[in-house]
């Protein structure tokens, strides 16, 4: 069965909620492993989200315009001796999608106006 265009999966809703929570805590951008770790903590899960599930969801959300991404400066990554990261941030469309999905955004974001404003 095909999904409605633009309809969000539970994992995608969780990513949006978690990303907005992170932003309220001061982290405007997140990368794949960071969101996986946050999801695990929030959901009290035993395992981190599988690679395929996580990156497929991020890719789809980016294509739908709910997230935007940019690659880290390779020099910064090289200085720290690690692969460069892809940083994501939630767009206004992503915030709207979360609200439209009827998720309790206010529960995740104590001060919603402040959280969505930046």
């Amino acid at each position, binding site marked *: 069965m095909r999904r409605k265009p633009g309809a969000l999966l539970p994992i995608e809703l969780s990513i949006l909620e978690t990303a907005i929570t992170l932003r309220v805590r001061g982290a405007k951008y997140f*990368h*794949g*492993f*960071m969101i*996986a*770790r946050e999801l695990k903590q929030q959901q009290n899960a035993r*395992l*981190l*989200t*599988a*690679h*395929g*599930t*996580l*990156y*497929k969801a991020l*890719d789809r959300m980016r294509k739908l315009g709910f997230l935007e991404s940019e*690659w880290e400066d390779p020099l910064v990554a090289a200085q720290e001796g*690690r*692969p*460069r*990261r*892809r940083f994501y941030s939630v767009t206004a469309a992503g915030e709207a999608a979360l609200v439209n999905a009827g998720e309790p955004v206010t529960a995740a974001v104590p001060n919603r106006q402040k959280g969505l404003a930046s």
Partner: protein
Amino acid sequence: MSRLLDLSIGVTRAWSATYTRGLPHDLRAERREEIDSDLWDHQRLADLEREPANGIANQILFRFVLGIPADLLWRIEAGSTKQATRRTSMNSTPLMRIGLVAAMLPLALLVVFGVTFMLGNGDWENSTEHWLWRVAFLVAPLVGGIGLWLCATQPRLGMALVLAGVGSSAFLMPWMTPITVPIGLIVIAFAIKRSGLVIWPFRPGTTGPTGTA
């Protein structure tokens, strides 16, 4: 670092190299780099938290295995988008449109023959066998033409119809083989080009011998 951890990281990286094979370079490199970064962060965090290496290895393996279906779905979607884009851009060129008309001409000519046979022209009897031959003369080139048309949107079905239509048309006229076989081969080559299927010796995005068909 334990051997199991080495193995789990190696397997995950090998898998990401495998399922991204054949994708455009940038798309492939980005997905692989993202997985590499994730593995590095996972390992780094485990080191900081002093988790046992084998436990981390198991977690990485679980993440890899549980993500395989999503990886494959992503790969299918990424591949189909790439093919559709390539087909659309390729078929929108004037040369390809001219090629389609040119490839349709011999098939249209055969349809005309088929119609005249149906109307009773030629050395035909009014028997069931001869009616079947008449129908075959009409249907075979029609099937080929429909296949040629469908090649751009449904490449596999289109190619199957082209092969069936062109092949049976040639079979129906064995005395015309010196003409039908080369023309049929040109039509088939054009259909391959139009479908965007990667079949040797045609490479995607190149203009092959069918461009002048």
